């Protein structure tokens, strides 16, 4: 469980994130939504200790963030950043680097690290890509490599910043299945998503951010009922029941999509 207690953070004098309190429950999928520049990514970075906080506390299973070293944080949370550059190494090596936080100086990968990396790749169905260079892979494949890396990190929580950007609809679909699978295997998942329908579909909890504050946080049903997206984006999300569960669609100015 990750608890944020009135966290404020940002760059320079005026902060970006103000007084955010949020609990990310264990083994559940939490989605963070909000307009561009509403402070989602900044909140993630503050949560991981990448940028200094100007106030508040962050607790991982009750342990405050300030008491943890960078490697200890990495063993608690695996982080998939938003803008990933493409390093010139093989995919297998990339996944293996997920074991980095467990190494002590001089940091050499051990036998068990290879085994864990191999398992992570098998779990993502990319064992065959180990020898491929990262630059040779498609966006979706690269995404899988990064997720395999996060799995190899064996952290109880995984945080992903806009993981579906650059993925085609088929890959997005597969991604949704993957997130479900992760959560079923007991991982805590926190996603920043721009695709509201996807967020509503795959998450157990949705938190909406506006101008650096949490506007509302609740289950997908509650978020739809209170028309949060209408207030955030001017585009409402409506739902209807089918025999295969609740379906969502966008509606703005009387037109639906």
């Amino acid at each position, binding site marked *: 469980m990750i608890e944020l207690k009135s966290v404020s953070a940002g760059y320079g004098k005026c902060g970006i994130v103000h007084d955010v309190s949020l609990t990310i429950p264990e083994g559940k999928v939490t989605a963070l939504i909000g307009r561009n520049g509403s402070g989602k990514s900044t909140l993630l970075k503050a949560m991981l200790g990448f940028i200094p906080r100007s106030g508040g506390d962050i607790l991982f299973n009750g342990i405050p963030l300030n008491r943890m070293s960078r490697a200890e944080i990495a063993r608690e949370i695996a982080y998939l*950043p938003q803008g990933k550059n493409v390093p010139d190494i093989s995919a297998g090596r990339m996944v293996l680097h*997920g074991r980095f936080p467990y190494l002590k100086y001089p940091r050499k990968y051990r036998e068990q690290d290879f085994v864990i990396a*191999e398992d992570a790749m*098998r779990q993502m169905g990319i*064992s065959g890509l180990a*020898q491929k260079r990262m630059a040779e892979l498609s966006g979706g494949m690269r995404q899988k490599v990064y997720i395999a890396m996060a799995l190899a990190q064996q952290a109880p929580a995984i945080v992903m910043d806009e993981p579906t950007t650059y993925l085609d609809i088929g890959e997005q679909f597969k991604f949704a299945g993957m997130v479900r699978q992760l959560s079923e295997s007991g991982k805590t998942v926190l996603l920043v998503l721009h695709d509201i329908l996807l967020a509503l579909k795959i998450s157990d909890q949705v938190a909406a951010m506006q101008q650096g504050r949490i506007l509302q946080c609740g289950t997908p049903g509650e978020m739809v009922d209170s028309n949060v997206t209408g207030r955030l984006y001017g585009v409402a999300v409506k739902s209807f029941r089918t025999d295969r569960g609740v379906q969502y669609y966008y509606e703005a100015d009387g037109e639906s999509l």
Partner: protein
Amino acid sequence: MGWKKRMQGRRNRKRNGEVQGGWRQRHWRLLLGGACLLSLLAVCSSLCLGNVNFSPARLVSLLAGSGGGMERSIILYARLPRTLAASFAGAALAVSGAVLQNVLANKLASPGIIGVNAGAGLGVTLCCAFGILSGGAVSFAAFAGSLATVFLIFLFSSRTSASKTTVILGGVAMNSVLNAICESVTVLDTDVAMLSIDFRVGGFSAVSYTRLVPAMVLILLAFGVLFTLCNELDVVTLGDETARGIGLSVGRYRMLFLVLAALLAGAAVSFAGLLGFIGLIVPHFVRRFAGNESGRFLPLCVVAGAGFVTFCDMVSRLLFAPYELPVGILMSVIGGPVFLFLLVRHKGGHRYD
């Protein structure tokens, strides 16, 4: 054979310390072995050939310490220091360039770009301006100059938390300031221009053990530290956020790598003068064959850099004997076209970005 199978092979063999088994590993060993062989050949021929030629057998017996007072002196006090200097300078500059290119994520980075060369140049110019002209003093001044620059880089990068672009821009600014001071000194005192030209062109003709040994020790130390940090270097190149995400303090390590690279370059420049080109082309050349994983990349850079510079130095001595061509010029003449050829011919890599 797939990675998986190879992994199982690994597990069966229970061998540690190797990155991946199978073809790639063998391929790399072959590459390293071949490069070692070629470099050794360059070193041996550099020891044997010159105004007086020795056969390899004679070389061995002379080095082992049997007879021949005059010949022994030639080997021990002319050829050996010169060959050592060429190989150490080559290795240090190549590795320095390789580290800088990776750490700054910039293909154009080389020791010159962060101001180390300019710092050393300023040290030498000032030294000459004060009328101190002994080889040892010039070498010391070059080293002090580059160390001072290393310190400035350290301060600058810690103030800017070692941001990649800022370090490069800062280096360019530092270069231009240091060069400006250099130029003004040479304009005011024209003798200095003549005196420091040897240093600016670079070369190994005036090398002696007193100049060489301290720099060699420093280079070996820096190599020692660097080779235990290969995985950290790889992780830094993954990008700042990914690296932080897997628990590396990127800023701190980038600073450490910058200082190590600057130390290597500074030590090399202190006895070899300004040989800029190696730091740029050797890493690129090696990367084409060995890939970008530091555990393989850096050792190969050491061997290739040492071999290339030793070879060039030997040719520069022999080509117009008894006159000598400055080795820097020869390196550009040989290395430049080879590099261009590689850029045009080699498929894959960064051709389409």
